[in-house]
C-alpha cells in the first residue's frame, strides 16, 4: 500500500466527485438544448451550467487527477519518503477553497462568463479569485514534484530518473508555464476590473493571453493519460515498454511545443496578424510528433504482450491480448478516440479548414472526444489500477469495470459523432436554445437528439465508475504489494544527460513562447486605443 494514500485518495475522491456533478450538468445541458425538451424558459440557467461544467472539467478535475497521480508516482517511482507532505495538504485545501469560492457566484448567476472568461464580459471577482486559488494550489504541487526529484537526484547522482517521474515532472513544469498566460490575463486585466479599480479592458489582448493557456492546458490534461500509456499499460497487460528513450523524447516535445501554438485558437480574430497565425499553425503541426511517437511505441509494446502470450502472424497477436483486462480495453478505446479526435484536430489547426468549423459544434464535439474520451478513459484506467494500492482492498467485479469502460466508449461515440456533424452543418456553440422548426435548422434535430442520448449513456457510465470505486473501498482486504511500473524491453542503465534533466528544454520552452508570443502581446500592450468598457454580468 502507498504510504501517502490519504493524500492521494483525497485528491482522487474530490476529483471524481466534482467530475460526477459536472457530468450531471453536462447531460442536462445536452438534454435542454435538444429537441427532446420544449423550450428553456430561462436561458440564463443554461449559461450558469455551462460555466460550472467547464470550470470544473477544465480546471478542477484534471488538475486534481494529475496531482494525486503525481504524488503516487513520486512515492513509488523514487522509492523515497514524500518531501513536503504538509505543503501538499496546503495545496489540496487551497483547491477546495478556490473551487468553492468560484462555484458560489456561478451558482448564484453572478459569473456566467464561461470558463474561458470572455472579457469585456465581467462577472463576480470571487469567481476569478477562486480560479486563481485553484491554480496556486496546483503550483505548490509543481514545486513539490521538482523538490522531490531534486532530493532523489542528490541521493542517486547520475542514475536515470525513472520514466514515470521524468514524465510527471515534465508535466508539472508544462503546467506551471502554461498557466502563466491566463494568470496574466486574470491578475493584470480581469480582476482589477472585477474589483472596480478599472472600468475598461483590452479584449483582444485578453484573448491572446488566454490562448497561451487554452491550448497547452489540453496537454496538461493528457499527460497523466500518456504516463499511464507508457508506465501502466505494458506492465498491466504483461508486455514490455518498447522504448524508454522514445517516451522521454515525447514528453520533452510536449514541454517545448505546447505553448508556442495557442494562437491557432484565434485564427478568426482581428487582433492578431496573419504572419503569427501561420507560425503558430506550423508549430501546431510539430505537436503531432509526440502523439505519433507515442502511438507507435505503445502499439509496439502491446504487440510484445500479444507475442509473449503466444500470438502469431502479422495481426494474429491482437487476438492473444488479454481483452478481459480493463487496462487493455481502456487503452484500445483510448487509441480509437485519439485517432478520430486527432484527425479532427488536424482540421482545426489548418486555418483554411478552420474557417468552416470555427466556433461551431464541431469544436465542442472535438474536445469532448479527445479529452472526455481518449484522456478521461485513461483517468478511469489509472484509478482502477491504483485503487487496490490506495485502499488495501481488491476491486471486486472486473465485469462491472469492463461494462463501465464499454459504456463510456459507446457513449462518447454516440455523443460526439453527431456533434461533429451538426458542426459541419453550421450549428453555433453555446446556445441555450435552437429553433429546430426553422427549415434551415431542422436537419440538425435528429443528430442533436442522438447526441443527447449519448450524453445519458456517459452519465450512466460515470455514475457506475463512482459506484465501482466506492464499492472497492469496502471490499475484502487484500495486500496489493508495492506499486510498480512497466519494464522497458532493454533495461535502462544510463540515459544521456539531455534525456535525464530539463534545463535546456525549459530554456527552449520559454524561448519559443517568447518568440511566438512576445511580439503579438507587446504590439497589443503598446497600443493605447484598444481598451473597451467592461460589461458586467448578472449582478443587478
Amino acid at each position, binding site marked *: 500500500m502507498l504510504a501517502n494514500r490519504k493524500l492521494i485518495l483525497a485528491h482522487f475522491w474530490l476529483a471524481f466527485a466534482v467530475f460526477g456533478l459536472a457530468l450531471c450538468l453536462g447531460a442536462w445541458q445536452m438534454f435542454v438544448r435538444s429537441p427532446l425538451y420544449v423550450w428553456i424558459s430561462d*436561458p*440564463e440557467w443554461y*449559461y450558469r451550467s*455551462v460555466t460550472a461544467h467547464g470550470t470544473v472539467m477544465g480546471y478542477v478535475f484534471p488538475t486534481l487527477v494529475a496531482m494525486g497521480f503525481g504524488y503516487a508516482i513520486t512515492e513509488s517511482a523514487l522509492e523515497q519518503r514524500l518531501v513536503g507532505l504538509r505543503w501538499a495538504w496546503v495545496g489540496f485545501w487551497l483547491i477546495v477553497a478556490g473551487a468553492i469560492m468560484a462555484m458560489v457566484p456561478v451558482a448564484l448567476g453572478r459569473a*456566467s462568463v*464561461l470558463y474561458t472568461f*470572455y472579457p*469585456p*464580459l465581467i462577472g463576480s471577482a470571487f469567481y476569478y479569485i477562486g480560479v486563481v486559488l485553484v491554480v496556486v494550489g496546483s503550483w505548490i504541487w509543481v514545486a513539490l514534484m521538482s523538490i522531490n526529484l531534486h532530493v532523489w537526484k542528490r541521493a542517486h547522482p547520475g542514475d536515470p530518473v525513472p520514466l514515470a517521474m521524468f514524465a510527471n515532472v515534465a508535466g508539472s513544469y508544462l503546467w506551471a508555464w502554461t498557466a502563466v498566460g491566463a494568470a496574466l490575463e486574470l491578475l493584470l486585466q480581469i480582476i482589477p476590473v472585477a474589483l472596480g479599480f478599472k472600468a475598461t479592458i483590452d*479584449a*483582444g489582448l485578453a484573448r491572446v493571453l488566454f490562448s497561451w493557456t487554452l491550448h497547452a492546458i489540453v496537454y496538461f490534461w493528457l499527460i497523466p493519460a500518456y504516463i499511464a500509456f507508457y508506465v501502466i499499460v505494458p506492465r498491466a497487460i504483461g508486455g514490455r515498454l*518498447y*522504448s524508454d528513450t522514445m517516451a522521454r523524447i515525447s514528453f520533452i516535445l510536449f514541454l517545448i511545443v505546447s505553448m508556442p501554438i495557442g494562437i491557432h485558437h*484565434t485564427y*478568426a*480574430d*482581428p*487582433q*492578431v*496578424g*496573419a504572419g503569427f*497565425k*501561420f507560425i503558430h*499553425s*506550423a508549430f501546431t*503541426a*510539430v505537436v*503531432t*510528433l509526440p502523439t*505519433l*511517437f507515442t502511438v507507435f511505441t505503445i502499439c*509496439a509494446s502491446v504487440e510484445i504482450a500479444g507475442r*509473449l502470450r503466444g500470438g502469431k502472424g502479422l495481426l494474429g497477436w491482437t487476438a492473444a491480448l488479454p481483452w478481459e483486462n480493463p487496462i487493455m480495453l481502456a487503452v484500445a478505446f483510448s487509441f480509437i478516440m485519439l485517432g478520430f479526435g486527432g484527425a479532427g484536430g*488536424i482540421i482545426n*489547426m*489548418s*486555418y*483554411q479548414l478552420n*474557417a*468552416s468549423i*470555427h*466556433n*461551431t459544434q464541431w469544436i465542442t464535439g472535438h474536445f469532448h472526444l479527445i479529452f472526455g474520451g481518449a484522456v478521461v478513459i485513461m483517468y478511469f484506467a489509472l484509478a482502477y489500477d491504483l485503487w487496490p494500492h490506495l485502499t488495501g482492498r481488491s476491486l471486486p467485479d472486473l465485469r462491472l469495470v469492463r461494462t463501465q469502460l464499454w459504456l463510456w466508449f459507446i457513449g462518447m461515440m454516440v455523443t460526439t459523432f453527431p456533434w461533429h456533424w451538426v458542426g459541419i*452543418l*453550421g450549428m*453555433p*456553440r*453555446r*446556445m*441555450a*436554445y*435552437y429553433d429546430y422548426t*426553422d427549415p*434551415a435548422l431542422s436537419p440538425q434535430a435528429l443528430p442533436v437528439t442522438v447526441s443527447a442520448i449519448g450524453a445519458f449513456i456517459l452519465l450512466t457510465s460515470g455514475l457506475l465508475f463512482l459506484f465501482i470505486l466506492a464499492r472497492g473501498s469496502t471490499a475484502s482486504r487484500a495486500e496489493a504489494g508495492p506499486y510498480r511500473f512497466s519494464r522497458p*524491453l532493454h533495461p535502462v542503465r544510463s540515459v544521456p544527460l539531455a534525456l535525464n534533466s530539463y534545463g535546456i528544454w525549459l530554456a527552449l520552452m520559454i524561448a519559443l513562447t517568447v518568440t511566438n508570443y512576445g511580439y503579438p502581446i507587446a504590439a497589443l500592450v503598446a497600443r493605447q*486605443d*484598444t481598451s*473597451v*468598457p467592461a*460589461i458586467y454580468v448578472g449582478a443587478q
Partner: protein
Amino acid sequence: MTHPDAHQDTGIAERTERRWATISVIVMIVLPLMAAYAGIHQATMPQPRVETIDPTRLHLSGEFMESNLGTAVEPDGAVTVRAIGQQYSFAPSCILVPAETPMMLRATSADVVHGIMVQGTNINTMLVPGYVSEQSMRFDKTGDYLMPCQEFCSFGHEGMWGKVRVIDKAEFASRAKNGGRLSCVGE
C-alpha cells in the same frame, strides 16, 4: 527475453522505429507546406493586419455609423458590406448581397465579443470590440443563409441570429443604381 538472434531483433526494432519517426517528421513538414501553398496560391489567408476602432463612438461618426451600415458599391465598383454586432442582434439584421461577386465584409462589435458565421459557407470571423474584422466573401448561389452569432455574448446569445440574402447580380445592380446602402431588413 532470450533469443538466439537478439542482436538482429534489436536492429529490426531500431529500423522500424526510425522509419516511423521519419514518416512522422514528413507529416509534420507537409502540413504547414500545404497551408502555406493554399494561403499564398489561393489567397486563403486570415486578415493580414490589425485595425482598431473605438466601440463607444461607433454610432457618432465614421465608417460604422448607422447610415453607413449595409452593402455599398464603392466608387471603384468594389462591393463592401459593413455590419456591427451588439447584444443581441446584428445591424443590419438582414444583409443583402449579389451572387457571384467577390466582396469584403467589414464588421466590428459595439459591446462584447461576438462572431459572424454564415451557415453553409466558410465565412466565419470573430467580432472583438476595439478591433475591425475583415473577411473576403463570395456566394455562388442565390438564396437565404442563416447568420448566427457564434460566440457566447451573455444571456441573450441564443437569440442572436441574422440573415444573408444573396440575389441575382443584375437585380442587385439595378437596386444599387441610386447609391446608398442596401440591406434586406423588413423585406
